[in-house]
């Protein structure tokens, strides 16, 4: 995997690979010696085999339900959420549920059609790494993460909506 944006806009490189969902009838091929993100339901189906492995994470597609991993999320070092198209906003709800409802504490990564102008929303919904689409200018990420110094609402990044902060 190429460069990755972190929460403060800095860039790091890592080697997690997204393993696509196998075609019907095929079995999942996890590359040897490669840290891999596999479809969440397949991780669950192979739980005995994958549980506790530091080199296996999962990814959700936007139509999938994070509820399937409830109670197990913190067994995973990385969870990725795919944005098949940047205008598909389901990933934001998936992220908040993973963080706020299921208490996921490890890395939450945005993958797929990840563009600069969506980073601010992803950040507020609990993503902490972002695999920007390759044709986009990664040096502008820091600025795009920080157009706003605060939000009106409570979200994953703050449990104090502005109306509570105003009161104090």
């Amino acid at each position: 995997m190429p460069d990755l944006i972190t929460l403060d806009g800095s860039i790091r490189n890592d080697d997690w690979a997204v393993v696509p969902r196998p075609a019907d009838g095929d079995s999942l091929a996890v590359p040897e010696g490669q840290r891999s993100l596999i479809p969440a339901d397949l991780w669950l189906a192979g739980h005995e085999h994958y549980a506790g492995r530091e080199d296996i994470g999962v990814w959700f597609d936007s139509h999938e339900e994070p509820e399937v991993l409830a109670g197990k999320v913190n067994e995973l070092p990385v969870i990725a959420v795919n944005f098949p198209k940047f205008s598909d906003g389901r990933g934001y709800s998936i992220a908040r549920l993973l963080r706020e409802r299921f208490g996921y504490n490890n890395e939450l990564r945005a993958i797929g059609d990840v563009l600069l102008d969506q980073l601010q929303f992803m950040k507020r919904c609990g993503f902490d790494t972002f695999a920007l689409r390759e044709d986009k200018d990664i040096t502008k990420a820091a600025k795009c993460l920080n157009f706003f110094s605060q939000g009106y609402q409570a979200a994953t990044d703050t449990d104090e909506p502005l109306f509570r902060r105003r009161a104090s």
Partner: protein
Amino acid sequence: MYVYDEHDRQFAVERVAQFRDQTGRALAGELEEDEFLPLRLQNGLYVQRLAPMLRIAVPYGMMRSAQLRRLARITRDYDKGYAHFTTRQNVQLNWPELKDVPDILAELAEVEMHANQTSGNCIRNTTTDQFSGVQADELVDPRPYCEIIRQWSTFHPEFAFLPRKFKIAVNSSEKTDRAAIQVHDIGLQIVRNEAGELGFKVHVGGGLGRTPMVSPVIREFLPELDLLTYLEAVLRVYNRYGRRDNKFKARIKILVKALTPAAFAEKVEAEWAHIKDSPTRLTHDAIERIQAYFTEPDYATLNNATDLLAEQRFENRQFDQWLTHNVDNHKKPGYAIVTLTMKKTGIPPGDVTDRQLEQIADLADNYSFGEVRVTHQQNVVLADVRQDQLFELWQAITPMGFATANLNMLTDIICCPGGDYCALANAKSIPVAEAIQRRFDDLDYLYDLGAIDLNISGCMNACGHHHVGNIGVLGVDKKGEEFYQISLGGSSHHDASIGKILGPSFAQEDMPDVVSKIIDVYVEKRTEEESFLETYRRVGIEPFKERVYA
């Protein structure tokens, strides 16, 4: 009305900087057209038939005189010297240049205005009754709740890319519904429960457009403090499960219908159970803080000017007509609510020049504590006028063209910009409105007909709310030619209903005759005191059909 604090000001300034950056990247080719599209739409910017169109937000229709003056200046400096009041209480500019839009937004921000979320698949401007806070029969002023919703929905990180646009309306009057809440994605009716506690009756899944629907109630009583957590639950269910495969089936009404209202409500309740006690739950303190911005202006202690008005009415028949039709009762003795009609024949409904915007600002300062409200019928309200100044006001506005005494009459037409301006339109709508206004130019006849909502949309996106017009007109395209389909029996009020299509569509030049025939049937069939809608509901569509297609 609401005044920005340092937080709101900071959001406004940061938003302008963000959009300037986005526009710069778009003009530099760093953003593809489909990537820039939702960014500009969420800032109200459409690319239209002739030029970009910029839709400026007027939260729940409220504006101060300084804001009107700034709008006037913007239309002069960046546009062609006029603006358009929309059917969602907003304002549109029809001719700005894309490169100027960041500067326009900066000028707006200086007077606490913006174009946030006036388009795009996000939560739009929350709308309400234009008589909020000044009418006698409302439970409480709905505007503080609208402002609370505005803040919650502004840049909401989870709901910026919904399946489709999302509109919320709030109503607080028991007798009337001027906000058309039952044809919104969420309609909130402010109510008290049996214990006397304040809350909301929640309607979800109404709307116009291609599949018009009157919304079902999914919760009879939502306690006041639970407003935002419940909205968040509704939006989350919609964001996750609303259809994204077909934009014509993506509104929440389709989801509610597909699941059934009961099953949809269950899903919302299940989601809400998790978040109802989260920090998003409102506090009395937070509500009171916002309510403090909507306190009464400094009213004088007055008696009703009954004798004076009677005398003035007696002496001047036109004033009498105007008073009867364009002036409403105020909760305070000695005050009145005045609607300035923007429906003079020959002027596109809702269009105002820069000079008129300044005139309205002056009127607001001189007669109504410096504030106005925009209505979804595309008129402007001066909500706090002294009764003993009504005659003077009427004399002032008559030459300005705001005193056409046709409020709620057949010629007080709701009309979208249509094919003259809008890239989406199938047909022109403004010339149809004008032809109908010319046909029905006798005010006495209009008064005899009574209140009739005639609404015109140039395409099925229904910006002109044709489905809920007592008489609805929809522009359609037939092999490249413009035709007009008529529906009858729609209503956007407490008795909301979707109009029924009369039959095959008509050519533009036939429209005044067709409307005349429909009106003739009403006049022949009505009983005394029966409105157009009541007659229609009693006799059905057949007599109208027979006459029009005879």
